[in-house]
């Protein structure tokens, strides 16, 4: 009888690394943590994070999640601040291309697994897609309570009133809720969750999302999840309701009025332009515009 | 007529545990009955236990032996028409506190209050504790301070800086701010000039007129003569005065029983 390893090497003779870099036992452990996280939406599940061939802060949490859920048929996309072409996104995409030999893409619609840092794609996700977030600090209560024992207790007893204090302090200082990213949310009416440093513009996209959303914090070794079609509510006050960012002008490139815009300095005189942060979406809009022009022009 | 308060065979001894368990008998077989509308003046030489007896009547000293009965207003729920009696010697702290709030007023020799409180607040406080509305309490406090010649510019100040006489008059005003059925006065006129002492005499006579029972210690004989309905003689040891009291008391005591 052939041993497991022999079987394995027989099927993939040229593979230098195990599929997805992590060993099978680790992937299984992480998938179990994901299942637990899915069963308890918004709850932070501890898992045994592994050393990855890159430093913490480069997305190790997201990478471990991706590595555990990717299969040979998956199409993988990585975005960083909405862009497919930044160092972080390119490195991670190449990493998986190397250790998994799988297809990668920059098109949101084509991807089955999207790993992201700081954004949710503009294009609505489908229920056959999974969004993997890289999380620097998973604990939303850390701001108000430095003790881990205490935050655990607050979660278990659902004591989240003090989280409002953060928003209260915002209004005191700025006259409105100035928290613009990592804006705390209540998941399924039970657990308070840090949605990772996505802009609050993206918060409404988590509510009743078609896609499964997984959050991985590599340094703090925590996984939490939002299953598809789950209620996700942003905290606010009755007289200061939650609202998302708005811009004076549309995207300078594609003219979109509904996407999240980045401010880009374009010369030394302080000239600036506002462009879509989601590069794939922007290109899609441009192509659409061109097609329409061709049709009507 | 039933007395308002009856002290029966009161004994009080201080045991000083840290001084070789020395024991000081300050009250021995004290008997006293006090009626509504009268002023009983405790009379005796220094060290005869006047102050100790007064403090005992206020519940300040723990009675070792004897009974200290005070008449209670008829209980609202019960259809009892006869008065009931509470023995202060065995009453719970809460019962004593309630008595002090509603029934027994006290004017000590010295003013002892939270340092920063204004004179007006001090006089208003016992009224507020009885649920009297602030405005009404203030009016009465002002009236009393006025009667006792505490200058108006001092009312908003804390008495710590006042003269001894001024402090004492604030103290007296506080004692008279609520119409207690029983008033205990420990040398209230000691540091007052004649004019102010006369005002205090007037307040005492007014309180008697409304039916208050008063027990006091008065050093000045001329004050004592003007307020006292009778004297309660005190001395350490059994002398004639005590036995006189005893016979007098026995007849009262029988009537109460």
């Amino acid at each position, binding site marked *: 009888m052939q041993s497991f390893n022999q079987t394995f090497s027989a099927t993939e003779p040229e593979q230098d690394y195990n599929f997805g870099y992590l060993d099978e036992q680790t992937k299984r452990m992480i998938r179990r943590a994901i299942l637990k996280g899915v069963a308890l939406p918004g709850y932070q599940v501890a898992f045994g994070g592994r050393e990855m061939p890159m430093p913490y802060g480069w997305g190790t949490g997201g990478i471990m999640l991706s590595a555990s859920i990717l299969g040979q048929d998956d199409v993988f996309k990585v975005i960083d601040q909405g862009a497919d072409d930044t160092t972080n996104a390119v490195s991670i995409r190449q990493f998986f291309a190397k250790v998994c030999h799988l297809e990668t893409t920059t098109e949101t619609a084509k991807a089955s697994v999207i790993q992201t840092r700081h954004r949710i794609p503009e294009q609505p996700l489908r229920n056959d897609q999974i969004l993997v977030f890289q999380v620097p600090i998973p604990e939303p209560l850390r701001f*108000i309570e430095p003790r881990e024992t205490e935050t655990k*207790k607050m979660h278990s*007893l659902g*004591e989240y*009133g*003090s989280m*409002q*204090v953060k928003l*209260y*302090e915002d*209004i*005191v*200082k700025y006259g409105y809720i100035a928290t613009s990213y990592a804006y705390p949310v209540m998941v399924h009416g039970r657990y308070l969750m840090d949605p990772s440093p996505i802009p609050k513009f993206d918060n409404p996209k988590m509510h009743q999302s078609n896609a499964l959303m997984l959050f991985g914090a590599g340094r703090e070794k925590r996984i939490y999840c939002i299953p598809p079609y789950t209620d996700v509510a942003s905290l*606010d*006050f*009755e*007289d*200061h309701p939650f609202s998302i960012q708005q811009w004076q002008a549309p995207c300078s490139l594609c003219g979109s009025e509904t996407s999240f815009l980045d401010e880009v300095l374009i010369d030394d005189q302080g000239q600036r332009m506002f462009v879509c942060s989601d590069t794939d979406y922007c290109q899609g809009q441009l192509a659409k515009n061109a097609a329409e022009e061709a049709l009507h022009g | 007529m039933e007395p308002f308060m009856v002290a029966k065979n009161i004994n009080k001894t*201080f*045991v*000083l*545990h*840290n001084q070789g368990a020395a024991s000081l008998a300050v009250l021995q077989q004290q008997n006293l009955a006090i009626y509504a509308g009268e002023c009983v003046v405790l009379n005796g030489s220094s060290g005869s236990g006047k102050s100790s007896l007064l*403090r005992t009547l206020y*519940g*300040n*000293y*723990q009675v070792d032996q004897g*009974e200290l*009965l005070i008449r*209670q207003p008829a209980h609202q729920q019960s259809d009892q028409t006869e008065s*009931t*009696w*509470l*023995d202060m010697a*065995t*009453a*719970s*702290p*809460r*019962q*004593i*506190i*309630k008595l002090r709030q509603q029934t027994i007023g006290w004017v000590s020799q010295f003013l*002892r*209050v*939270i*340092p*920063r*409180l204004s004179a007006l607040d001090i006089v208003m*406080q016992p009224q*507020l*504790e009885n649920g009297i509305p602030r405005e009404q309490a203030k009016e009465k406090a002002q009236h009393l301070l006025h009667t006792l010649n505490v200058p108006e510019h001092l009312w908003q100040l804390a008495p710590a800086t006042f003269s001894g006489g001024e402090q004492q008059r604030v103290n007296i005003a506080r004692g008279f701010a609520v119409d207690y059925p029983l008033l205990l006065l420990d040398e209230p006129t000691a540091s007052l000039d004649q004019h102010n002492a006369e005002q205090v005499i007037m307040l005492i006579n007014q309180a008697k007129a409304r039916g208050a029972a008063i027990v006091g210690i008065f050093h000045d004989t001329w004050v004592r003569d003007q307020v006292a309905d009778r004297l309660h003689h005190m001395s350490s040891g059994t002398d004639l005065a005590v036995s006189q009291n005893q016979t007098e008391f026995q007849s009262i*005591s*029988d009537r*109460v*029983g």
Partner: protein
Amino acid sequence: MDNLAQALPAQFNDPAEAPLLRAEGLSKLYAPGKGFEPVNLNLFPGEVLAIVGESGSGKTTLLKTLSGRLEPQQGEVIYQGNSQMPAASLYQISEAARRQLMRADFGIVHQHPMDGLRPRISAGGNIGERLMEVGARNYADIRRQALNWLTAVEIGADRIDDLPITFSGGMQQRLQIARNLVTHPKLVFMDEPTGGLDVSVQARLLDLIRNLVTELNLAVVIVTHDLAVARLLAHRIMVMKQGQVVETGLTDRVLDDPQHAYTQLLVSSVLQQ
């Protein structure tokens, strides 16, 4: 003629005067003489109870156990907010229920104000947090209440957005009290609240506490080693020595006519004012 008083019930039987807090056979000993040995007590609405004794006598341990923060080895702490509410044995109900009860009905004033305040949150936020904890979600309303309480504890309204670390010790202590009282607790536990303060500031604070007790019908358990504080604030006093309650009763009676040797020593050691 004998025992007229026996006609009366031992306690007032007014149902409105049921004890708010009861401790029955309560004990917690870390080691012999460390902690406290069986304590029984009743505390009623509007009543101030002082626990006095020297350092290490078990006062603070007792306070923690009474206030739901330290499980006793024996005995029960029973809280009944009002006659409609069922009585709750603090250490037999779930932790969630206990914390809920403590948030809604208890206040805890620590000796060091910064132990009970959030240093990086504005004064208004520190007061408002308690309201938000019990569900307040209207900013304007939270702020209005915070402002009212700042004024009530004599902190200038213009300091509402300042951090407590910029306040003096006395102001911090008053802020801590405001934070505790904004949710209208029925029972407040104070551990040496005037401990670290200047004498002049102490007086203001005592005055404030006493007014609040009268106006809000608060019950207070105050731990102090300062007999003058106990005399001015407390209706009743409990004297502790090496984990044992040696004497208890009416404050002025215990202080003016102490029965136990230790209380006599304690009282006679105080400098006369």
